[in-house]
């Protein structure tokens, strides 16, 4: 390990801190938590975990600040600053201007990419440790740090810190030697009693943070895969935290198995990439190669410095020239690269719960709420989006189109299901899926920055809402059904208030046309969703065949607003529906509300300035802007083009969201039209949605039943044929053994026994001499001596 950049150092330490925490907690946790005499265990494990992740946050923050100063992350990229006057007074002019250059796409943006690269590398990459070299294959622990990594690190550690602190309060009832799980009913009607697993929870959380940070830090796709799986394991452990609950263990299994499907594609992608490119690395090392020509990474091989993919047509179909490679003629078939991209994306689909693998995420809400907040909304599911974004340079237009459609379908399907869900956490879960669909859509549409922008903002407000729901659940004594709540804002004002902030943020509501010190009055969600919708609108204009990709997010924006406000009105507004629940309800302690307020702050302000703001600017420094591929049917929108549609898209989205909000207020705030009547009128649709578009049934029919049939067939084959052969062998063995036994018993044993009997007889006859009497022995000696002498005299006389 030669030289490692200071930012990388900071991140590596921030990455390893939770691992230390995990090791200490998991090995020493149980004992450290015994208090002398008291039945309560101490909070040491939680403090340790919070300390680790908080330290990680501080380190990440310093790394981010260092990155900002080193790379100038807050400065707009040269051509951007002029070409993207975001809130320009004259949007039409821009729009027309950009339509004219649409035929010659990305002329200016290509320069941007060049300057982005040429103006000093804005990433650091290097090796921490080589695990092994197997021929050409080199497996190492690498790091790859660019602005995206820095921001992801900061975001993950910040949210994780908040959630850890929140969890101290949420998991408090686990801090006992005798915890009663009221949701597990034993055969005798009683509830399960078990020791509290307070320390275990925090050790899992620490392991999760370690894995997630490792995933973000990874400098090669193999390491990404390793941590990808580690994240999956943590998810499995945390979903199944209440392992005694059947639903929890089933959900954990489901999450794990569904993820395997995606990972299968991931592995295929990995294999294609390795066989074709011979490396797993993202980009060449900047650290540690002392002047030598760095080994090129995947991104550099696929695209040149201008983001151009070198496609050639040959007799056997299109091929892609591998660039920056020793062998100038090295190439990869076009379709194979597409397959690799689809494979990688399949992994993202599984992890980010995209259609058609979205079914596991709602079930994952069986885990404790902080887990839902951290793992299943803010970070882990975002890992899929992160990977899709990270691998953006490798994705060819066909792949991007697939991504876009998957995202569009997902966001719509999930949003529709969320309308009818009644469990507060499930509403949020479907909302998460839907929002992840937005991000995927954005990436697929070429709105790389918009997708990641939304990833960050969504992480903040979604974790905020989950923690709010956790606060509600704790306050209502583990009641999650919204129909039993209502009017809680009086009982838990802070929660209600912060939740409202989150809801407004996700709905993308804003005050149109008014700005304060040059900034729009809007929460973070408005900016990011606006960016996506604008991208989609531009895309739809450029590729009219794919207009659906614009309509879906637009409509869903309204649906989102509807179901989110439905949730808020259901829970906090109106009159209490269950008086008893209401009476026992209480506001959560400070340890839980303070993280809420911190997250609320970020949910409001993290995206301030929108696409001109610091967050988006910093993210965009990592962007690879793809150059148009010659005979591709798809034209990706450029930044300039998008900027032209921004105004329109913003107004449209706001309008739709406002409609959704209004509808929600009418139905659930005012109660007119009565939701019950609507439900009855659209009973079929409602049932269809309640059953989650019958995906589970579909999978049951498509996969599970056929598998059962095939398995039954194999089982009968096993029983009839294989068992028969085995039985025949066994029978023959028995016959042989019988004969062998006869041989052993009669012949071998006969000889041995005969010898033994002889020996025993001799011994018996000799044992008469062995009296144990000392005096006789002495006598024998004397007699023996005399006999010897006499023999000697007799045999050798006169010698």
């Amino acid at each position: 390990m030669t030289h490692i950049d200071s930012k990388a150092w900071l991140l590596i330490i921030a990455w390893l801190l939770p691992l230390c925490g995990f090791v200490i907690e998991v090995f020493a946790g149980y004992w450290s938590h015994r208090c002398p005499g008291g039945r309560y265990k101490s909070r040491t494990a939680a403090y340790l975990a919070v300390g680790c992740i908080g330290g990680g946050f501080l380190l990440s923050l310093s790394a981010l600040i260092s990155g900002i100063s080193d790379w100038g992350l807050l400065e707009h990229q040269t051509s951007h600053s002029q070409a993207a006057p975001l809130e320009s007074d004259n949007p039409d002019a821009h729009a027309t201007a950009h339509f004219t250059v649409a035929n010659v796409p990305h002329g200016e943006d290509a320069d941007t990419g060049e300057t982005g690269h040429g103006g000093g590398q804005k990433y650091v990459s290097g090796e921490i440790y080589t695990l092994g070299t197997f021929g050409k294959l080199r497996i190492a622990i690498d790091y790859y740090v660019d602005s995206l990594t820095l921001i992801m690190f900061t975001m993950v550690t910040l949210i994780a810190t908040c959630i850890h602190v929140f969890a101290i309060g949420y998991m408090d009832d686990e801090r006992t030697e005798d915890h009663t799980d009221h949701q597990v009913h034993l055969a005798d009607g009683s509830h399960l009693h078990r020791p509290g697993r307070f320390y275990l929870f925090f050790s899992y959380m620490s392991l999760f943070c370690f894995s997630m940070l490792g995933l973000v830090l990874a400098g090669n796709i193999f390491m990404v895969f390793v941590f990808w799986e580690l994240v999956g394991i943590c998810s499995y452990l945390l979903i199944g935290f209440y392992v005694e609950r059947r639903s929890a263990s089933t959900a954990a299994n489901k999450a794990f198995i569904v993820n395997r499907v995606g990972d299968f594609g991931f592995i295929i992608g990995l294999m294609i990439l390795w066989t074709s490119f011979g490396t797993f690395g993202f980009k060449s090392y900047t650290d540690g190669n002392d002047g030598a020509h760095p080994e090129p990474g995947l991104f550099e091989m696929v695209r040149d410095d201008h983001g151009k993919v070198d496609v050639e047509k040959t007799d056997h179909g299109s091929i892609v020239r591998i660039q920056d490679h020793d062998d100038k003629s090295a190439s990869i078939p076009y379709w194979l690269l597409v397959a690799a991209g689809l494979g990688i994306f399949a992994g993202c689909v599984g992890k980010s719960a995209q259609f058609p693998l979205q079914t596991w995420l709602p079930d994952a809400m069986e885990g404790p709420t902080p887990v839902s907040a951290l793992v299943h909304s803010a970070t882990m599911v975002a890992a899929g989006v992160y990977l899709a974004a990270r691998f953006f340079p490798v994705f060819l237009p066909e792949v991007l189109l697939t991504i876009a459609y998957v995202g569009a379908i997902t966001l719509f399907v999930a949003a529709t299901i969320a309308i009818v869900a009644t469990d507060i956490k499930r509403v949020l879960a479907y909302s998460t899926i839907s929002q992840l669909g937005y991000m995927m859509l954005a990436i697929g549409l070429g709105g790389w920055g918009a997708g990641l922008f939304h990833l960050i903002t969504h992480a903040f407000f979604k974790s905020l809402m989950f923690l709010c729901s956790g606060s509600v659940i704790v306050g209502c004594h583990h009641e999650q059904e919204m129909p039993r709540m209502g009017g809680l804002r009086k009982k838990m004002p802070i929660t209600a208030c912060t939740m409202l902030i989150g809801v407004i943020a996700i709905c993308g509501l804003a005050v149109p046309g008014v700005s304060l010190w040059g900034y729009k009055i809007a929460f973070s969600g408005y900016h990011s969703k606006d960016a996506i919708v604008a991208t989609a609108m531009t895309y739809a204009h450029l590729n009219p065949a794919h207009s659906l990709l614009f309509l879906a997010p637009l409509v869903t924006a309204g649906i989102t607003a509807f179901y989110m406000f439905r949730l808020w009105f259901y829970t906090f507004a109106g009159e209490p529906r269950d008086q008893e629940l209401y009476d026992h309800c209480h506001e959560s302690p400070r340890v839980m509300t303070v993280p809420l307020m911190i997250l609320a702050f970020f949910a409001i302000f993290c995206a301030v300035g929108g696409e001109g703001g610091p967050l988006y600017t910093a993210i965009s420094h990592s962007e690879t802007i793809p150059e148009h591929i010659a005979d591709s049917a798809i034209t990706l929108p450029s930044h300039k083009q998008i900027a032209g549609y921004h105004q329109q898209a913003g107004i449209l989205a706001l309008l739709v969201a406002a409609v959704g909000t209004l509808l929600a207020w009418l139905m659930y705030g005012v109660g007119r039209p009565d939701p019950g009547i609507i439900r009855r009128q659209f009973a079929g649709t409602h049932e269809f949605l309640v059953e989650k578009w019958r995906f589970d049934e579909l999978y049951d029919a498509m996969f599970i039943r056929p598998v059962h049939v095939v398995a039954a067939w194999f089982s009968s084959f096993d029983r009839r044929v294989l068992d028969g052969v085995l039985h025949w062998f066994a029978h023959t063995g028995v016959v042989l053994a019988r004969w062998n036994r006869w041989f052993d018993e009669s012949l071998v044993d006969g000889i041995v026994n005969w010898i033994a009997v002889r020996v025993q007889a001799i011994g018996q006859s000799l044992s008469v001499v062995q009296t144990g009497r000392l005096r006789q022995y002495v006598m024998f000696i004397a007699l023996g001596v005399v006999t010897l002498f006499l023999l000697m005299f007799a045999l050798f006389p006169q010698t």
Partner: protein
Amino acid sequence: MSNQPLFWIFALLTCGGAVGVVISQNIVRMAFSLIVSLGSTAGLFFLLEADFVGATQLLVYVGGTLVLLIFGVMLTASGPFQQIRVSPGETFLGAAVGLLLLSVIAFTVIDVEWDTLNAARTEASPGAESGNTARAIGLRLVGIPADHEIGVHEGRGGRTGYLLPFEIVSIHLLVVLVGAAYLARAKRRVADGSTGGEN
């Protein structure tokens, strides 16, 4: 000077004591006979000009026998003059075997021509008449062969000593003493309250 009468006295006492040990049935009388026999043997050693061996015989063997005596008294203390008799047949058998052995050894002793050895000895060491062998033995034990008879014999080398056996025997003695003390240690019983005094 003629030592014949002294030899006869000591020899008779030695043999008589030994036979007394065999014949006697009382353990203390046996021990007394043994002391007589061993003491007379020491006398024989003095006659053979082995003063140091004789003195050691007195000190060590008599000390050892003393302990034997104590044990004999202690372990047969259930009756004041307890005797464990053997059957006359056994006694006769033992005597017969003993006589047979004695006759064999006596035959051997008589059968050998000892005079040649005697002659060799008189030639080899004309002046070793003094019994003051203590210093020579001591030097020999620490590895300095001061005995002129041995020192000059060819094939033995000039440095014949017994330092190593001496050390080995010393360690051996120590080990044996510790071991014996361990073997014979008192098996302490748990003291009941009445005997809890100073001891």
